């Protein structure tokens, strides 16, 4: 088995890069999900383009309005993540980092959402599919009491925490 795995790994070198340097792919984003006790923590790291439709400093009035509207939306957890009702989760104030739009660079938006729940949630509905249709794919890294895993989610799919 070890030999087999080694062979596969030699043929496919360096498939995944370090987390921090995850490729900046428009349409795709990464969410990290951790559950400890009854606390649920979700962080989103996404190219700004997925949410705004542009990645530079806003120029027109429309773009400025869009930036403002999206910032407001991101500050409401329910526009992105809705844990299942049975768990009775309460969202804390999110921490949202909007890009500073440096010249000639891709811009990312990261945000952190934490929830305090009555019981351990079994799934999280992703309302971001509906509110931000530019998302085409999500990579979810999960850390729960049952262990860690990675899920690849397509538009419309819920995040199962089982």
């Amino acid at each position, binding site marked *: *088995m*070890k*030999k*087999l*795995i*080694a062979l*596969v*790994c030699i043929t*496919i*070198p*360096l*498939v*995944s*890069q*370090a*987390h*921090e*340097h995850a490729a900046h792919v428009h349409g795709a984003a990464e969410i*990290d999900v*951790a*559950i*400890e006790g009854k*606390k649920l*923590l979700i*962080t989103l790291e996404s190219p700004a383009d997925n949410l705004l439709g542009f990645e530079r400093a806003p120029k027109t009035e429309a773009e400025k309005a869009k930036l403002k509207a999206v910032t407001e939306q991101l500050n409401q957890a329910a526009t992105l993540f809705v844990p299942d009702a049975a768990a009775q989760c309460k969202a804390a104030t999110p921490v949202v980092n909007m890009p500073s739009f440096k010249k000639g660079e891709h811009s990312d938006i990261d945000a952190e959402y*934490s929830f305090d729940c009555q019981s351990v949630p079994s799934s999280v509905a992703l309302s971001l599919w509906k509110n931000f249709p530019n998302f085409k794919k999500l990579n979810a*890294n*999960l*850390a*729960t*009491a049952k*262990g*860690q*895993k*990675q*899920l690849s989610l397509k538009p419309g799919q819920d995040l199962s925490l089982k």
Partner: protein
Amino acid sequence: MFKIALRSLLNRRLTVALAIFTVALSVLLLVGVERLRSEARNSFANTVSGTDLIVGARTGSVQLLLYSVFRVGNATNNIGWDSYQKLSQDRRVAWTIPVSLGDSHHGFAVLGTTSDYFKYLRYSDNQPLQFSQGQAFSKTHDAVIGAHLASKMAYRLGQKIVLTHGSGEGAMSEHSDQPFTIVGILAPTGTPVDDTVHVSLDGLTAIHEGWESGSASLLSSSGVLAAAEDRALPPPSSITAFYVGLKSRTAIFSYQRAVNQYPDETLMAIMPGVALSELWQLMRIAEQALTVVSGFVLLIGLMGMLTALLTGLNERRREMAILRSVGARAWQIFALIMGETLLLVSLGIVMGMALLYSFLLICKPILREVYSLNIAIAAPSTTEWLLMGITLLAGFLIAALPAWRAYRMSLSDGLSPH
């Protein structure tokens, strides 16, 4: 009627036995591939338990997982001792286990670590490591060996072993001047731990003193260094990787970011479970190919049985006609052939599973020995039951063809041979 059918089967026993055997072999392959796939996954997943993050030099996450946990491949770079010290003192960290690899002993990996390894490392379902004999290392030249290594080399407590500089076949230079004493033997875990010699980081530092040029200097081979067991050793300049347990799971991602953005060194922290998921993604194509191939083998097996049945049917025209003449209805003939085929397929499935379990029993030690793959001999899983169900269903569909032919023939055929 049932008796007659049984007699008819016995009369054709060679063909029937061959048909059953073909189905049995197909089932063996189909279920065997599935079993091997799921057991390999389990075996890997059981190796990392309870470790939140693994930190190493920046490389692919799968690569870091493979060399730091499964001892497959080599590290591209090490971590400086200073960086390790700083990162392990972070307030989010509950414990760390430093890991230093690179030397070997008769092809088995030598792992330098601290006694925290025995305290915090978990495998399978959060199981701690246990000693079957002896205890953890305390002196510089103490070694703790895994269960499989101990049984394969027939090592006992107190025995002296010599480590080899480097790993692999080409590693020739031995640290023969500084033998290690076995002070502990671990209970079997079914993970790479079983095949490892564990020594303290001090031990690794000690044997590499005077080896700065890559080979033994006069000083290092004289044995002078080994003699003084209690002399102060400097900390190692670097380690290969370290495992991290955090106080809270919710800190995983922030600590991971802190490591990835560590200013003094390009480091990377991976979540072992996530890296395993990535590894399965890579393996999926190979797994699917295997499943498709075994699916086709099953199809061929069933086709072979169909051929045998259809050929047999021609020879059994008389039998059918006689059955009809003594009062059997046409639908009874249909049911007869249907039942016969299903019986053969069922026997094939049972025999295939029996073959699988006997193979597993025979090959278990070989798989363990050669591929370090631990196969548990357990009852069939849901997927395996499903595969057997599919085989039976396929047999049912295939049986319909000869049964329908027999039904038609028995109506139109006379007793006279054509």
